[in-house]
């Protein structure tokens, strides 16, 4: 009796196993490749991006995958190094045979990887900020971007300054890809807004004390300072600005948009003006804002799962992954069909505002991607016009 039961159990077991494995074969996952700077000097970008990518893939799979098939994420760390990014992009394409690549995190790495994906004809959604990543569009057939360009943030700032009677400004930029790109756009756009740049200097990304630079600005006629950097120096300049008791307003780049920066500045950030992406001020957004469902959901899920504040950089990863999900659901596992879908995406609501791409524009965002905010009582406050 016992023996029969055992044999019965065994046969059922094998039956289940065999059907399960048969089912698994039809259920080959969709492979998406990711290359982000988890370590190295751009880790503050890559770290939340890695977290977000893993989270979004889990969400998609919990919802039953795409067309019944799960998504598999193959993620590698570029160590913030462009040549590593190239090697890993090739690895994703030749070894892992992914359908699309998301990342890399920085503009430098993104620029280095572009020829690889163009040659291999694999769609890539880059997280770098530089406008050069998606332009000229004829040379960027397979490349898309989810980050709104620096020029949009600068236009918003200049617009705001003009309305507040500021026309002489000092600009300080870090000598990094991010800083130089911001500086270039600030200089190019200033004449259009009739703004006079009376002071312009750059500093190294490792700078630990910027009082000397601010002291020089104090000797000019500048009515406002724009600092364009990311990472530590934006905190350093904020603290030094307060310590020197400077009265002219300090504008930061959108990279300042993280609650941790306010905390690190220890009260010095009061009054700092920043254009930020909506994810930074998710709690302040009205419920009837079209972005509210996405932005609030991302913030809630991320903070529950990782127990750390959400950042604008992770938001890029969210947007890219959900765009890919929509593409795969619509066109299936075909690289050129995915590219076509990405190129014509419209009305997609993401953390970076609403995307409307076209064959002439592989970003698809406008000035609405940013909101001007001011630091008030240790938190962000939307500047009401």
């Amino acid at each position, binding site marked *: 009796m016992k023996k029969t039961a055992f044999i019965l159990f065994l046969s059922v077991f094998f039956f289940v196993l065999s059907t399960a494995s048969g089912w698994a074969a039809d259920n080959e996952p969709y492979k998406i490749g990711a290359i982000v700077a988890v*370590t190295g*000097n751009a*880790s*503050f970008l890559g*770290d939340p991006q890695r977290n977000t990518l893993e989270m979004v893939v889990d969400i998609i799979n919990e919802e039953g995958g795409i067309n019944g098939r799960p998504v598999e994420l193959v993620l590698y760390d570029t160590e913030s190094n462009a040549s590593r990014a190239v090697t890993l992009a090739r690895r994703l394409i030749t070894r892992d045979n992914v359908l699309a690549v998301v990342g890399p995190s920085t503009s430098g790495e993104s620029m280095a990887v572009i020829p690889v994906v163009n040659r291999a004809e694999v769609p890539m959604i880059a997280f770098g900020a530089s406008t050069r990543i998606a332009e000229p569009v004829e040379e960027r057939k397979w490349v898309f971007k989810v980050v709104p360009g620096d020029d949009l943030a600068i236009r918003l700032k200049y617009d705001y300054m003009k309305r507040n009677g500021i026309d002489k400004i000092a600009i300080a930029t870090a*000598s990094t890809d991010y800083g130089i790109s911001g500086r270039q756009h600030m200089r190019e756009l200033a004449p259009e807004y009739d703004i006079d740049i009376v002071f312009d*200097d*750059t*500093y*190294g990304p*490792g*700078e*630990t*004390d*910027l*009082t*000397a*630079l601010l*002291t*020089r600005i*104090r*000797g000019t006629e500048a009515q406002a300072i724009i600092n364009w950097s990311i*990472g*530590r120096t934006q*905190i*350093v300049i904020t603290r030094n600005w307060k*310590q*020197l*008791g400077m009265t002219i307003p300090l504008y930061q780049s959108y990279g300042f948009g993280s609650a*941790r920066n306010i*905390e*690190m*500045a*220890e009260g010095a950030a009061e009054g700092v003006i920043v254009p930020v992406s909506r994810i930074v001020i998710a709690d302040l957004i009205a419920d009837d804002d079209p972005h509210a469902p996405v932005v609030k959901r991302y913030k809630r899920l991320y903070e529950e799962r990782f127990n750390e504040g959400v950042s604008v950089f992770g938001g890029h990863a969210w947007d890219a992954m959900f765009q890919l999900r929509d593409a795969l659901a619509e066109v299936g596992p075909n690289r050129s069909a995915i590219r076509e879908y990405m190129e014509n995406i419209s009305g997609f609501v993401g953390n970076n505002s609403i995307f409307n791409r076209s064959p002439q524009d592989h970003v698809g965002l406008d000035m609405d991607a940013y909101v001007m905010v001011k630091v008030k009582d240790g938190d962000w406050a939307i500047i009401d016009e």
Partner: protein
Amino acid sequence: MFDTILSGQIIQYLFTGLTIGAIYALTALGFNIIHNVTGIINFAQGDFVVWGGLLMVMFARFFGFPLPVAFFSVVGVMVFIGAFIYYFNIRPIKKPSILTMIMVTIAVSIILQGVAMFIWGKEPYALPSFIEGPPVYVYGAYIMRQSFWVLGISVAMVLFLTFFFNRTLIGKAMRACADDPGAAGLVGISTPLMICAAFMLGSALGAVGGAVITPITLMEYDRGAMIAIKGFGSAILGGLGSFSGAVIAGFMLGILESFATGFVSSAYKDAISLVLILGVLFTKPEGLFGSGANKKA
């Protein structure tokens, strides 16, 4: 009007330079202490500064220790780490050539940085000033209160070291080892013990620098290499092995960088200080104030 603005600026640059220079000076002293006793240039010296700063943040902010307790706990932990590095990484090496020692200390530096990343992550950390309060206004310049702490503690460290090496038995024994290890051994001084003491003192000194500067500059795990390069540069400018030279050169380098930022551009200040260091190396390798007494290198 113009004059007051300019003099205010100059005082501002001077104090900024002195504050940064103090850290270069402390780091350079750390290099010299270990170099004099062992002939080793410890490339992990900058990481001691980083660890000092991060431990201070941990003790003072997260454990809520009172400042003096936190400060001495930091020094205590770093003394232990210094001894640990000596016993497990330096002592086991059988044929210590200069090249081997450079490689070992570079490896130690990479490991310290990796462990710091493991413990504290990659974000910078802030620390409140030792005594809170608005900056002091002096002749058109705003001086942070913490700057006085940095300068005061640096001067105190220099005085302490002078006393230590000239008046205490262990200090004199360390100097004896530096001058002639063979003879020191004959009179019963244990060279390994003295080398260990040098590592303990060197790492404690770096940690003190890190603990006092963090309220001004913040601190994160990967700052060590840059601090080490500037500190090493100061040690060489001042003449490798010379304590007074290291202190003067450290302050000089800090002030030079600050004025370079003020009157040229922040972007080139590192290049300016490096060119100065190379210029001195090529023309006067015994250092700006040295008399060629040091033949160890």
